[in-house]
């Protein structure tokens, strides 16, 4: 079980996403998960070993490290990526439920069911409308909330997004205010800013997708309202014309009859 398994699970959702949703998924896997696995994990790999404090007092380093890094960047990113990916499962569950219903209809031999076989139902792509629209929109909303919460948590915990070279620590059992040096601070700052930037791009993509879905929804509604089945004025004009034509026809018939009779 690893990120590859998450990719398999979310890949199925991709089929039923909008184009912006597909772009979001690509950005998530390439610029966030892959960067985390192949690069960021190496940078933070030796973090506590190479966190050096200017004291020989046993325990001081442990305590200072714990004070400055209550939860490591890398773990916070991993949690963020997991939480941000989970709302897409709502859509996957909804689609699976719809497919299950259609398969049930097909098996009952319902005449309303327009599929030829079960394979067709399995491969079918559902359009984002009706209740699926609500599920999809809620999933985007939750994604946005999780992204915002984690970005705020980062900012709050680490006082901005910069990794300092030196930290001063005087937590017990350190005998006095002790200098502690973080390993690879510049590289960590670069990766932190990169991950924050990509997070922001994902937030923008989610907002764009939300706007797109809302616009589509309102356009569809206004089309339904603007395309009535019966327009009274139009009908009256048609009726009047038909009446005139009927009179003409009946007049000409009468004339013909009179003509014949005479």
């Amino acid at each position: 079980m690893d990120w590859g398994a998450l990719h398999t699970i979310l890949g199925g959702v991709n089929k039923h996403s909008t184009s912006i949703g597909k772009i979001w998924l690509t950005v998530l896997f390439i610029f966030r998960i892959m960067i985390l696995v192949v690069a960021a994990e190496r940078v933070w790999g030796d973090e506590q070993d190479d966190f050096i404090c200017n004291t020989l007092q046993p325990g001081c380093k442990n305590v200072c490290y714990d004070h400055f890094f209550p939860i490591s960047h890398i773990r916070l990113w991993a949690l963020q990526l997991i939480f941000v990916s989970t709302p897409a499962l709502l859509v996957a569950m909804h689609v699976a439920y719809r497919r299950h219903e259609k398969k049930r209809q097909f098996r009952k031999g319902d005449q309303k069911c327009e599929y030829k076989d079960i394979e067709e139902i399995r491969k079918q792509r559902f359009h984002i409308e009706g209740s699926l629209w609500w599920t999809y929109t809620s999933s985007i909303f939750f994604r946005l909330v999780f992204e915002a919460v984690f970005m705020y948590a980062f900012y709050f915990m680490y006082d901005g997004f910069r990794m300092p070279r030196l930290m001063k620590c005087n937590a017990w059992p350190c005998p006095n205010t002790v200098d502690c040096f973080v390993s690879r601070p510049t590289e960590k700052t670069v990766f932190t800013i990169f991950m924050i930037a990509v997070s922001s791009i994902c937030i923008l993509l989610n907002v764009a997708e939300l706007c797109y879905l809302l616009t589509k929804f309102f356009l569809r509604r206004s089309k339904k309202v603007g395309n009535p089945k019966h327009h009274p004025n139009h009908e009256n004009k048609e009726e009047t014309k038909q009446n005139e034509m009927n009179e003409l026809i009946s007049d000409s018939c009468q004339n013909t009859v009179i003509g014949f009779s005479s």
Partner: protein
Amino acid sequence: MSWKFLRDLLSGVNKYSTGIGRMWVAVVFILRLLVYVVAAENIWKYEHDEFECNIKQPGCENVCFDHFFPVSHIRLWALQLIMVSTPSLLVVFHVAYRENREKHHNQKLYKNPGEIDGGLLYTYLISLILKTGFEIVFLVLFYKLYNGFQVPRLVKCDIRPCPSTVDCYISKPTEKMIFLRFLVATSCLCIVLNLSEMSYLVFKYFIKCYWKRHVKKCQ
């Protein structure tokens, strides 16, 4: 042999589960197994190396670490994941038994071997009870072993060969505590899902029984 085996096992169980059962599988996969593999394992990776005592006496650190961590959090977590997923095998075995029986008798004995009715309902309920039981047992174990889901920064140790009461410092205690509490939260969520699924199945069974009796009376 790795977590992939558990993943395949749970995917197989998914086919015969109710909707709530599938939610349970999703929670176990994503919020427990995936978090364990990609985040939690690395926190506890060097726990022994980074456990430091304020003494140079050889053996003191080893003895103190062993005293405070009889079974490491991360191993207990892994055991919990395995034990909690295994009762689902009962359902898989029962369905396989049904299919085998149909093949043996060469006729259709069940409307659908995977449908949760008759004996399979009891097997499913037993698997839910076992899953919930294991979750509760492990939560109690965590609570008793680690003094209420706490990971302190400092522990005092005076076991031989430590010459006196010695200060020992645990590495990354805050991060460990956060993940421990996350584990407890997801465990509780899984217990709630299991109990809801049990109530749903029992309720559905009673409604079915009542309806059948009602139909019979009318006839």
